[in-house]
């Protein structure tokens, strides 16, 4: 059951779609940019672009991946325009303290910090898999990688998190 996005009904369908997907699009943008304000800007711009070209999507069935692609491109465009200065990860972590302090559990807070410090190459596929529920095949297509490369990045992302969080007895780390 895919709702068309053309015409008046399409406007309603598109609005509902944005309501439903916007929180996760924001979270995805946040974990790409590691900055709440930039993430807000990226999502706003992405939704505006999506609205203008909604009829090119045709139906809502593939909307999640379509919107995610727009968010990724908008994030890249914003960085091209702004040419942000390189900031040390530790500064980023402390600069984002409201987000990082929002977790109610110590374990979650520590994990959030560890994910924050992951390289983008590892962080992005992990967010797509765990938060957005994308398959490794879908991630590979989105990132322009082979499925094998995605699997390796996902394995290393979790391996890095285990090490950063001091999880002991991780014999699987030898597998890398």
């Amino acid at each position, binding site marked *: 059951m895919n709702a068309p996005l053309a015409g008046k009904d399409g406007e309603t369908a598109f609005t509902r779609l944005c*309501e439903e997907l916007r*929180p996760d699009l924001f979270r995805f943008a946040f*974990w790409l940019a590691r900055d709440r304000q930039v993430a*807000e*800007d990226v999502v706003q711009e992405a*939704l505006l672009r999506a609205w203008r070209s909604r009829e090119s999507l045709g139906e809502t069935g593939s909307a999640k991946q379509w919107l995610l692609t727009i968010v990724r491109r908008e994030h890249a465009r914003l960085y091209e325009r702004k040419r942000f200065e390189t900031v040390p990860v530790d500064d980023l972590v402390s600069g984002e303290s409201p987000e990082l302090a929002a977790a109610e559990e110590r374990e979650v807070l520590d*994990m959030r910090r560890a994910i924050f410090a992951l390289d983008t190459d590892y962080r992005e596929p992990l967010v797509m898999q765990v938060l957005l529920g994308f398959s*490794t095949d879908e991630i590979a297509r989105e990132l322009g990688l082979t499925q094998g490369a995605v699997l*390796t990045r996902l394995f290393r992302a979790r391996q890095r998190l285990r090490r950063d969080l001091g999880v002991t007895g991780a014999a699987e780390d030898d*597998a890398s």
Partner: protein
Amino acid sequence: MNCLEFRRAAGADPEHLSPDAVAHRDGCPQCAQFLQTVRLMDATILKALQIPAGDRVAWTPAAPPRVGAAVQASLGNRNRWYALAASIAGGVAIGALLWVSGSRDALARDAVAHLAHEPKAMVATQVPADAAQVTAVLAKDGIRLRSDPGLVTYVMSCPFRGHQVPHLVVQTSEGPVTVLVLREEKVSRARKFHEQGYAGTIEPSGPGSIAVIGGTDEQVKEAAARIDSALEWK
């Protein structure tokens, strides 16, 4: 498959194991334990990734998305900014009004709309979903099965109204029903609805509710009762 290969596979994609990996897990307690550890860590990763996403006010074509600060800086025309602010205020007012007056109906609509994103959601099949995956998806939400909910043929953790929720498809004698387990959506009593040709019900369950969507009122009522009694919420 040996232990090393299993751990690489499970460490990369713990929710989608190949038949070889499943066979290895079933015969290797250490690797089964490892998989459990990875899945527990993934539950923490998911919680960590779910940062607060801000307000839930929708935007409409009449009130397009607020242009963010980075873009506002490039808008030199003050009148344009005022027009934009006015459209935001209007959008907020309309959005808030719609949200307050129609939140319960909106929940039913959103539940049905969610089916559009899951093409496998209403397929009649007798092929069961991976039991371990069913357990893991429910466990992420602090739920376990204490009795048989029926034949579960599809399971996924899905984004819904700002949260990851378990989405199941359960086969009944009258065909499949889709189930969304909604810890964050509280309802005071069961409510039937009909949307886009589907029959559905949203019923209190545990600290939240379950939305069950199928073909007929009878089908969803029967399925909802069975599923509700099968869920044990922590």
